[in-house]
């Protein structure tokens, strides 16, 4: 069971890290200063949540001597050097095939509309998920979720307002956010399809059944889309695989960049 709990903690951590990293690409490039600060504040919250989940995964791995296979080749080497798993080795030394994030979070930031819409889809999902995780039988997962929920409430309100502002704004903003819906919609379904580790810990009351939050998520999207004058998509093609380590090329490019310093200078310290 610990193996599945560790995989689940990594899944939650990877979602937050990769989206936090994507949003941070706006740092210094936001459309106006206040919104540049807003999106990077959201990055900071997400990376903070990621750290909490990574620290917990590391604690579990060290306590239960879980196989270094969890991280892949370079991670195993790092583990031999350091003697223990750390939040940093989980973030900087695992290969992309070991990352369990949803495919939606690794998609490029695109334009402001695409960034906003992805944040809205994700925050609406995270809000429902963390509400359920408050009741998790695992105390630490519950504590991280309760802490994170206060932040997610801000993210959801901010991104919802922006979806409405863009959708019900000018002709150009409307067409851009419509295009973003086309780009991102097929990546939303993965959030509600459980994989093996989720099902295994669902039985223990640690993780919720993600299929149970799908309806509420769709309701939220319908509500905001209707205010934003956006058409609700009819097709429901679903890309899956991210939660099990099957990623597109984007994740590799992200990791190449942010793992490069740690991997080039593994003995460097702050």
């Amino acid at each position, binding site marked *: 069971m610990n193996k599945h709990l560790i995989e689940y903690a990594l899944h939650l951590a990877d979602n937050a890290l990769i989206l936090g990293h994507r949003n941070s690409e706006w740092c210094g490039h936001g459309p106006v200063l*206040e919104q540049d600060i807003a999106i990077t504040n959201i990055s*900071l919250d997400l990376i903070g949540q990621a750290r909490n989940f990574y620290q917990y995964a590391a604690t579990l791995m060290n306590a239960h001597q879980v196989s270094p296979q969890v991280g892949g080749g370079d991670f195993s080497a790092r583990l031999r050097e350091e003697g223990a798993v750390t939040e940093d080795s989980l973030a900087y030394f695992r290969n992309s095939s070991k990352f369990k994030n949803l495919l939606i979070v690794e998609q490029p930031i695109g334009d402001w509309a695409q960034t906003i819409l992805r944040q809205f889809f994700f925050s609406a999902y995270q809000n429902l998920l963390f509400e359920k995780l408050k009741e998790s039988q695992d105390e630490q997962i519950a504590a991280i979720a309760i*802490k994170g929920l*206060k932040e997610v409430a801000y993210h959801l*309100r901010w991104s919802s307002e922006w979806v409405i502002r863009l959708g019900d704004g000018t002709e150009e903003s409307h067409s851009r956010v419509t295009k973003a819906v086309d780009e991102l919609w097929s990546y939303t379904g993965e959030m509600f399809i459980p994989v093996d580790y989720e099902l295994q810990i669902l039985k223990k009351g640690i993780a919720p059944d993600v299929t149970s939050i799908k309806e509420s998520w769709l309701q939220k999207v319908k509500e905001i889309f209707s205010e934003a004058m956006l058409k609700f998509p009819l097709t429901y093609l679903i890309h899956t695989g991210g939660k099990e380590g099957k990623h597109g090329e984007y994740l590799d490019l992200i990791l190449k960049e942010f793992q490069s310093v740690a991997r080039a200078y593994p003995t460097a310290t702050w």
Partner: protein
Amino acid sequence: MVTANNILVDAVWKILKDIQDPEVPVSTIMDLGIVRDVLLHTDGVEVVITPTYSGCPAMDMIAMNIRLALLEKGFRNIKIKTVLSPAWTTDWMSEEGKRKLKAYGIAPPNPKQQVCNNDLFALHETVQCPQCNSYHTHRISEFGSTACKALYQCSDCKEPFDYFKCH
């Protein structure tokens, strides 16, 4: 009952009272409610702290400052533990802490009941200008220079100011 242990614990609390928050240097970590507990063990002392926000970048520095301050006063075997539960809230901020924030030019958090409102495009919270005390202020951005603050501007004296968000 006064015991040797109580005296030691009091001494630790007293040291912690002087440690500043690195991001809001006018406040101490006690003013902000970051220190949750001080525990005495047979072989050392443990200080329990909690972050304001999940991503608060000041936590590592706060932990280091606590360690240094205690070492300086002769404590050894210092353990600093970070807990997430119960989640930090601005309700834990002391009245003294709020007064100091205002004097520094940061509007202190409003009482909680005013904000737990997630309605979209809701009226912004009424925040008092820390400079001229006017309530005629408006929000510029929900997110400010640090995770715990929002950016406001006074419509009377025109000064922009930080508001320590209710959380």
